[in-house]
Structures are given as C-alpha cells and as structure tokens.
C-alpha cells in the first residue's frame, strides 16, 4: 500500500480523498494555488505544496509543478479527483514516468476513451449501441453540414475531448450550425485545449443513466449499478440518484446496461473506477454516450446504495490489490439522492456568486451525508468551478429519500453568497420529479411551467417583524432616501425565470 498520496485537485473532492487516505492510514499531500491557501483541503491534509497563482492554467493544470511537489514530499501516488488533469492522458503518462502511481486507469485507456469519436468506434465494435452520428471530429463547416444533414436535425455538437457539458451545443436548424460550431469549438479549446468537435443525432428528451464500473490490475472488472443524472442545467448535472426510477421499474435494465458497460470498459483495457454514460430513449433503448475515465462527482449515491467506498477501492486497486468482490457479491439497498450545491443565484438566471461565506449551517442526522469543500469564513474563489458541496441522502425508498433531502435542505443555509439551495426544494416537490418522469430537458421545462412561489401571509408578518428588529439594531437611523434595487435586475429576474 502507498505511504503518501498527493491529491492533484481542490475543493470537496480533495477533501473526500484526504478523508479516505486518513482512514487508510496513508499520508496526504494537498496542492494549492494562491487563491486556496486557506482552503479546506489545505487545512485538512497532512502536507501541502503551493503550485502558483490562482488561474488553474498556472496552478492546478501545471503538470510539472505537481510532479515536483510529489517528488519533494515523497508521495508515491497521485489521485487526480475529477476535472483539472483527471482525464489528461499526458498527466497519467507523466506520473508513470516520474515513478508515481496514477490512481486511475492507464494513460492508454484515458486516451482511447478520451477521444469521444474513438470511444464510439471502440464500443460499437463490441456491439454496444451508440447514438447515430459521426465517428470522427468534423474538419470544417461543410463536413459538419453534411453529417448533420445525414443524421437529421436536431443534432448535438460535442467536444471530442469533452466532459461536464462544456463545448456542447444543440442545433435545431441548419442556419444555426455555423455559430454553434464556432462556440462549441472555442469553448472546447478553452476548456480542454482541443477545438475538436463531433456531431451526434439528438435524442429528444432522453434520460441520462450511467453505469459505474470498477476494475483491478488483474483483469477483474465489475459494474456497481446505475445512477440517473437526468436533472441537468446547461448539460451540468444538478441532482443524481440511485437507483434510477426507470431501472427500479424495469430491473432487467441494470444487468443489461451493466453488462454493456463492462464490455465497453474491457474493450479499452480499463482498470480503476470509471463511468459509462448512456442516453436512454422513450422506448428504454440505451445508447453509449461517452466514458468518464475517472471518479464522478456523483459517486456518493452509488456508495450509499452499495455500501462500498469507491475512493478507497480506487486506492486499493491502484496499489495492486485485487477487487475484494465479484459481480454476484454486490447488492443494492434503499435509495440515494445527491444535490450539487453551487455558488450561483437561482433567482437571477443562475449567475455564479463567488465571495466570502459569512454564515454556514450544515445539515446532519440520519441518512444525511455532506461532502463539503468550504467553511464559514472561506472566500469562494472566482477562478474555479462553483461547486461548494454535495449533499447526499440515503433512505429505504425513493420517496423517503426525497422527504429526507427536503428536510436536510431546510437545515442547510449559506450566507454571504448566493447558492442554488432553494432551487432544489422546488424540483424535489415537483409532481413530475416525484413520479420519476425525468429527462435531460427536465429543468428547462420545469422553469417554464413553474410559477412564482406562493407567499404565505402568516409568514409575511413574521418576516416583516424580524426585518424591522434586525434593521433597527444594524442600521444607523435613516435620514436620506433609500436606493431601491435597480429595476433592471428585478425585471430581468422575473422574465428569465418565467
């Protein structure tokens, strides 16, 4: 087993890995940019190394500095988390060359699955169904037009090196293709340093259901069941769950999708943790979408239902241990949900909201798991993803898990910055959500059909009283006119959310 592991990441996932290492008795080395000197992962790690200035290009993406830190601190392995360098084959390669174990798949597997077009070819050859579309990136606009025309509109543009919804554009009409291609390419270039984009047939209102796989260095490869991640906004997952309500109603889907996922992973010579993402259409046909060759943000829902610790298993198999179980040993119990808590303003078109957290009340109690990367007093930097924390719950059934999540959300509050906490409750109470009728366009539809919240006159009186008491003790006697909120913001908010 390793003696010391460097975590090439920040935020909640770095904290998650540090916790696992601590429980395993393995030393942890955090890395940080200047924006993160006081971040929770630095505070919690046994050791810490500075990488550079705040921009990730000068810190968390600096392969050489990370390897240098690992050397200086005597780490023998590197955990990449998700994002940043997690799916960078060059980084995995560099680790290996520096004598460090990369806690993840081989550089070769990352490379093969990292190119979305090669991945499609690879898994298609194994008989895994794929979404109709091109097997390779588009060379130019003319080729794009040809492929899109052949698939039939609407189509999706996707970054070949992509993930996490970046570099994606839906195109409904031929005349929108040029602008969308330009946007997707430039976003992909910025996010992944590759402007390559490919085209797929758009499946209308699909469900996003993915399969967690896990393999060791000895050829054992199992799947840990599915997660449904259909609740997305701008292609970013917002709420995830296990089991998928669809799979729960059609249990044979788990084995079928699991078997396809293992076949796809095996084709890439895959080991360690990875995820095969599928789109599922209205007829329960599933199509390979892509493979994420790393730990997922939403791995806790699988952990809560299977009782496994994916991060510890990643570390164990990376150190050469065989998987401690086989496929038939696995069992799924109860239901789990996860909400991704972002620093963004749901009342204002989800604009990011970095800044200092002046107040933080955190949920706990039965069945509640909070994976947070922040604390009261921390300043959320402007430089990175706005994910603050993940709130996951487990309960015996989906309905109980929903009730528990709502209860936990009531206990959760973040002050000083805006978060999407209030938004989750609205979704969780939605009739369609509760019925499990999910699809990737759910949130857009929901925002269109849901009106403003009813206000309770009884609560209004309490709010007015408390506000008056607060302001009397916090404000100078007011002698001048107050400035009202800019009508701009007020009206924009109303319009955008309608």
């Amino acid at each position, binding site marked *: 087993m390793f003696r010391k592991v460097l975590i090439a990441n920040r935020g909640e996932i770095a904290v998650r890995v540090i916790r696992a290492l601590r429980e395993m008795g393995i030393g942890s080395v955090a890395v940080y940019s200047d924006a993160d000197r006081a971040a929770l992962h630095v505070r919690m790690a046994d050791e810490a190394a500075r990488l550079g200035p705040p921009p990730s290009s000068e810190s968390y993406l600096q392969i050489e500095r990370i390897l240098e830190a690992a050397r200086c601190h005597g780490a023998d392995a590197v955990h990449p988390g998700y994002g940043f360098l997690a799916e960078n084959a060059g980084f995995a390669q560099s680790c290996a060359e520096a004598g460090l174990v990369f806690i993840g798949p081989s550089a070769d597997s990352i490379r093969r699955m990292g190119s979305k077009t090669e991945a499609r070819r690879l898994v298609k050859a194994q008989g895994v169904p794929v979404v109709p579309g091109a097997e390779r990136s588009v060379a130019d606009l003319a080729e794009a037009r040809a492929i899109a025309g052949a698939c039939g509109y609407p189509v999706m543009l996707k970054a070949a090196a992509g993930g996490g919804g970046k570099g994606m554009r839906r195109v409904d009409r031929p005349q929108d293709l040029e602008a969308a291609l330009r946007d997707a390419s430039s976003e992909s270039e910025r996010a992944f340093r590759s402007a390559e984009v490919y085209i797929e047939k758009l499946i209308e209102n699909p469900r996003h259901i993915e399969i967690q796989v896990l393999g060791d260095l000895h050829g054992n490869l199992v799947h840990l069941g599915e997660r449904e991640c259909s609740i997305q906004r701008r292609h970013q997952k917002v709420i995830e769950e296990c089991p998928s309500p669809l799979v729960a109603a059609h249990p044979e889907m788990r084995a079928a999708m699991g078997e396809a996922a293992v076949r796809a992973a095996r084709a890439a010579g895959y080991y360690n943790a990875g995820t095969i993402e599928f789109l599922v259409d209205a007829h329960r046909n599933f199509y390979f979408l892509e493979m994420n060759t790393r730990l997922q943000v939403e791995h806790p829902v699988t952990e809560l239902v299977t009782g496994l610790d994916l991060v510890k298993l990643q570390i164990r198999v990376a150190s050469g241990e065989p998987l401690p179980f086989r496929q038939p040993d696995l069992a799924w119990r109860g239901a789990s949900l996860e909400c991704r808590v972002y620093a963004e303003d749901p009342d204002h078109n989800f604009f990011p909201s970095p800044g200092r957290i002046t107040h933080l009340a955190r949920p706990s109690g039965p069945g509640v798991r909070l994976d947070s990367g922040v604390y009261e007093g921390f300043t959320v930097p402007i430089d990175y993803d*706005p994910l603050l924390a993940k709130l996951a719950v487990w309960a015996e059934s989906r309905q109980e898990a929903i009730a528990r999540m709502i209860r936990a959300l009531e206990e959760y509050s973040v002050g000083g910055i805006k978060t999407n906490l209030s938004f989750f409750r609205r979704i969780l109470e939605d009739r369609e959500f509760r019925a499990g009728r999910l699809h990737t366009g759910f949130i857009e539809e929901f925002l269109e059909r849901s009106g403003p919240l009813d*206000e309770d006159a009884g*609560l209004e009186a309490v709010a007015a009283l408390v506000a008056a008491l607060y302001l009397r003790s916090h404000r100078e006697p007011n002698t001048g006119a107050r400035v009202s909120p800019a009508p701009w913001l007020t009206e924009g908010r109303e319009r955008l959310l309608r």
Partner: protein
Amino acid sequence: MNVRVRINQREASLDYRQDGETCRFRFESQQERDALVALVEPGVYSVLLDGGSFEARVEEDGEGVCVSLRGHRFAVEVLDPRQWTGGGRSGHLRGRQELTAPMPGKVVRVLVAEGDPVEAGQGLVVVEAMKMQNELKAARAGRVVSVAAAAGATVAAGEVLAVVE
C-alpha cells in the same frame, strides 16, 4: 413603532413595540399579537407566535434584507416614513437600464455598440466567471447609450457594463 415596509415588492404597515423577549405587533390590518423573539445566532431569530416556532435568518441584501423563513424568502425594506412619497421614485428610473455585472468576472465579448437599438432579451455582454460564460441580456427594448465593458477586462460585481435607455 409604526413603520412602513416593502415586502417582496408589496408595501405594508407594521406597528410593533418590544419589551424584552416579547414583541407586541400588528401587521397590516391583522390582529395585534405577541411574539416571543430570541436572537439565537448572529442574524438568526427564533420567533414563537401563536404556538408556532419560526426560525428566521436575516441577510443583508442591498439596501434591505432578505429574510429566509420555512423555505420562503422575503425581500424586506423598512421605509423611512418621512421620505416615502408613494412610488414616484421608482417611476423616475423606469426608462433607464444599467447593465451591471452580477458577479466578478472577465468580459469575454461585447455584443453591442453605442447607439445600437436592442430588443428585450437581446444579449449585450458575455461575462465569464467560475468557468462558465454568462450572457447578460436586456430586460426591455431600448437604445444603447453607453458601453463601459471591454473584451478581456476584469469587472467587479455591480460594475456598470452598459446603459440602455
């Protein structure tokens, strides 16, 4: 103390007097009632009223406060009765829209120039923050009278990027 409050855009009257933990108050034309109010944490009030237990969390929000209460949020301003003249002021600003940066970030693209006519919902400026590009749009139709934003510039929250009239 008799004050006027603006609560979620609606104006209302509030009369209250505090005596230790007890607060006798009347909201609008409702009955006069006694609330037990305890400040349990900074900005957090526990209110017992008519047998109910209410926990209210107050946060500064511009000139007023935002009160979170049982999953609802109320924007509340206490209006100075001497200054309040009945809504004339908000009318005064109605024709002018100042497009401000809602968060610190970097201007990626400016989509309009001075003098351009804009439609409601038209994108004006794209700001990148926290790895996401966010298009700031016009709330109403009008004409761009000034553009302060420049591509590549770093902007602070609240900074004016453009003005539309």
